[in-house]
């Protein structure tokens, strides 16, 4: 096995992993503020890509203008989803909430199919598609965009959670909702914030990945599950652990496809998911009762 082949597998894996990480963080932000797994997270990824295409196609906006519009609409969708599907619930048991998010995801997928059809569509790359050679391997400019944007978003996330009042309030809710409520934090608003942030992040992930993988009404399912897997590896933390979880998952998938068999690509992700849940349910890096957020 040559070195440049391994390098290529690793680089490809890192860029896919970065996407898993972004989606995974979306999962954990909502989990930490509400205690539910939002299975509609993948649909925001789909919305990001499809809305960008919509703004560029029928509405004829340039790419740089279409992206913020798409993120904005996806975020609004996230808020509406929280306001009308999650908040009105009388008895928010986890199982009810999970079923509601699954229902929400099916609804969004169906609407997207009716609105934009079933065809797979492609987004133009942000800055050309001339391959860049690194050692014996090659990557595309879009891969650099993916890695770069992921890093920036994670950095902003960190700043928000540790250096702003509302970020700190959200962390307080994650530790103890009741106590946070008692000291005067509006817990419901924080829940809405968490949906806002994670739907925006999902949309961004969907947009930056679309030029490489293309997008369709049903891309959210698989990406959502992979992102969930990354979040589990990271122990549902919304910081570095989930990012590392996503990257590990991406690289393992790519190495597995290259060195073992590509038939097992998706199986690898789910075997890891099951192993982590069985052996280390607190995540790969977490202590048994660790700080979440």
């Amino acid at each position, binding site marked *: 096995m*040559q070195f440049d082949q391994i390098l290529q597998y690793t680089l490809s894996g890192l860029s*896919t992993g970065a996407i898993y990480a972004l989606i995974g963080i979306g999962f954990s932000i909502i989990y930490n503020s509400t205690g539910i797994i939002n299975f509609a997270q993948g649909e925001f990824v789909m919305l990001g890509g499809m809305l960008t295409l919509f703004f560029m196609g029928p509405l004829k906006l340039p790419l740089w203008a279409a992206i913020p519009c798409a993120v904005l609409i996806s975020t609004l969708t996230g808020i509406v989803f929280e306001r009308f599907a999650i908040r009105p619930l009388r008895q928010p048991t986890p199982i009810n909430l999970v079923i509601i998010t699954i229902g929400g995801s099916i609804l969004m997928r169906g609407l997207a199919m009716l609105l934009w059809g079933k065809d797979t569509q492609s987004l133009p790359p942000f800055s050309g*598609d001339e391959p860049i050679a690194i050692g014996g391997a090659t*990557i595309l400019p879009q891969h650099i965009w993916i890695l770069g944007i992921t890093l920036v978003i994670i950095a902003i996330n960190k700043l928000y959670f540790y250096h702003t009042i509302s970020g700190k309030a959200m962390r307080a809710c994650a530790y103890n909702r009741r106590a946070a409520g008692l000291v005067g934090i509006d817990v419901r608003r924080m829940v809405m914030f968490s949906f806002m942030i994670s739907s925006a992040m999902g949309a961004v992930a969907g947009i930056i*990945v679309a030029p490489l993988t*293309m997008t369709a009404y049903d891309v959210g399912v698989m990406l959502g599950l992979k992102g969930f897997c990354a979040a589990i590896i990271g122990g549902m933390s919304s910081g570095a652990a989930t990012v590392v979880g996503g990257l590990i998952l991406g690289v393992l998938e*790519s190495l597995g*496809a290259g060195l073992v068999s590509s038939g097992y690509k998706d199986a690898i992700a789910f075997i890891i998911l099951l192993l982590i849940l069985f052996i280390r349910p607190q995540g790969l890096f977490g202590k048994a009762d660790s700080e979440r957020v």
Partner: protein
Amino acid sequence: MRFRVIPFIGLAVSLLLCSTVFAATPIKIGALFAVTGPAAFLGEPERNTAQMVVDEINRTGGIKGRKLELIVYDTGGDATKAVQLATKLVKNDKVSAIIGPSTTGESMAVIPVAEKDHVPLISCAAGIKITDPVKHWVFKTAQNDSLAVARIYEQLQRQKINKIAILTVSDGFGASGREQLKSQAARHGITIVLDDTYGPKDTDMTAQLTKIRGSQAQAIICWGTNPGPAVIAKNARQLGLKIPLYMSHGVSSKKFIELAGEAAEGIRLPSGKVIVADMLPASDPQKKSLLAYVKDYQKHYKAEGDHFGGHAWDAVMLLKGAIERGGDAPAAIRDQLEKTRQFHGIGGTFNFSAQDHAGLGKDAFVLVEVKNRDWMIVK
């Protein structure tokens, strides 16, 4: 009271009978297409085309003065649903013949219905096992995978390429292609040095292609339907693969070029003649049908007709010919279909016989190459 009602009933019944005598009953044709679901890229153009052709036939007076009535059901690509709908077409709608289904899996599931209830079925799917072995009531219009494979291998032989890598999608279409690629390789003096697969929803195939780059392969053959092959084309360009890349006829529509963009340049694939209709020599017997189909489809649906829709065109026109010659009884339609010779359709020139219910020869495929975002015939 009773005496007053009876004459009315009698009148009503006689009126009903009269009307059936005066306006000849339409000939009912059933159609099963996967208009929604994963195979919608097949079912949608097929439904559109079938409807367009039937409307056209009715507008010009029908068949011997009788109109055609097309009853279309959407199977959603689901074999179980296809069987239920086929039974419905036979039992409730009492159709004379069935067109479709769109995919091989559905067709195989529906075949027992057609065989048991004695209704001719013209499948629009490509799988070789639909008509091999021959089933009494079953025909098909889509070209066999084996013909497409043979077309690629002949070209490779001509270029003295004998070591190839194959990359097939892990669904029915890919599995059937893979089987054909492997079974025909030896006959053409070709060795498959690497045999790999990818999932229909996979979004990154650089791992497989890197493996191929490290192998002895002189060409890659990829067997799949959109969007996988477009991703592979992009990945191959990213990795700077220099060896020729061949695709299957599963991506022979403009959609593929649109998705793969720049990366599609130079890719070759076997295709039905419809995408290069205007480039065919005037001597080609199919040219007339092809041009007419492309023009009509453009007029009706403002979109380019592809060879998937062509399968439905062929099916309706074959039925029309059979009904013109032998009437609309299912058994007569079947017998006349089997006697069809030299029918120049969209998929190729059909010659059915008691031994061959697929009816197409190797000339059904041309090899095309993507040049400047368009198709060119490879000489």
